[in-house]
């Protein structure tokens, strides 16, 4: 039941951002930034709750994200597919995305990436465990695709222990 609270609140947030910002690109950027700020804090909550140890490679990371994290916070388990030959890129396929329950994209917002917060969250959370990644949506049920697909690409290991700027 309370997952609807999150879904509805997220919807109200996106609606408000669309009012505040002139174009979809700016809204997408804001969502990503907010997601990042959430991610850097969410990771602590996640590690405390889940007790998973350090991941040894990107494949383990992918498993933990899909089977533990997504399950814990959004109640879904995306599937992992489309590994790149080098093992540094994969896709998360979400059959259904709880964030878009009750949502329809109006015609004048075709470049809005509604769930972009998720990209920021993943990016921020992984940065806190020393991984720099690039995360983006490549398919979106809101735009008529059959599934929602998030592509994650490993960029590099972050060696410094200095925290990156949070905002």
């Amino acid at each position, binding site marked *: 039941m*309370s997952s609807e609270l*999150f879904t*509805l*609140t997220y919807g109200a947030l996106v609606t*408000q951002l669309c009012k505040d910002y002139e174009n979809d690109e700016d809204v997408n950027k*804001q969502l990503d930034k907010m997601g990042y700020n*959430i991610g850097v804090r969410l990771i602590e909550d996640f590690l405390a709750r889940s007790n998973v140890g350090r991941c040894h490679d990107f494949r383990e990371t992918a498993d933990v994200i899909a089977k533990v994290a997504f399950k814990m916070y959004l109640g879904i388990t995306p599937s992992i597919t489309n590994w790149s030959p080098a093992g540094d890129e994969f896709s998360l396929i979400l059959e259904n995305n709880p964030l878009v329950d009750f949502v329809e994209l109006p015609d004048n917002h075709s470049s809005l990436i509604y769930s972009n917060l998720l990209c920021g969250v993943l990016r921020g959370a992984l940065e806190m465990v020393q991984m720099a990644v690039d995360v983006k949506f490549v398919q979106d049920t809101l735009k008529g695709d059959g599934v929602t697909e998030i592509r994650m690409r490993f960029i590099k290991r972050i060696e410094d222990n200095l925290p990156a700027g949070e905002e």
Partner: protein
Amino acid sequence: MADEALFLLLHNEMVTGVYKSADQGEVENGRCITKLENMGFRVGQGLIERFTKDTARFKDELDIMKFICKDFWTTIFKKQIDNLRTNHQGIYVLQDNKFRLLTQMSAGKQYLDHAPKYLAFTCGLIRGGLSNLGIKSIVTAEVSAMPACKFQVMIQKI
């Protein structure tokens, strides 16, 4: 469910975000509170629709307020309102001694002047919920020592 953590973080980020894009000053502060309250309003309307789909008709205004204090509050904040008072003339005071959105902030007077920002959304939630049950109201909140706070509901006779 762990999604409470997610909601708390989202809520805090929303408050921060709304204030960041505003300038300083009384007028701006009011505008930010209004924005947050309006977001809460939309969410409250949506939530109450989902929750009351299968419930029986409410007997009267007090019945509705009790629903807000028990079922509504429990589903959203995992606990009931601790104390409900009314003057039986349209004013209700809902007291929550350990308000979930404030427990992480402080226990006492620290950051007291920031508390209203974190209550605006919830005021809207209550107002929105009541609105879709046919009650027009004004909801305000006050905090004297965190994490306890009081929500005051003033029913508007149409």
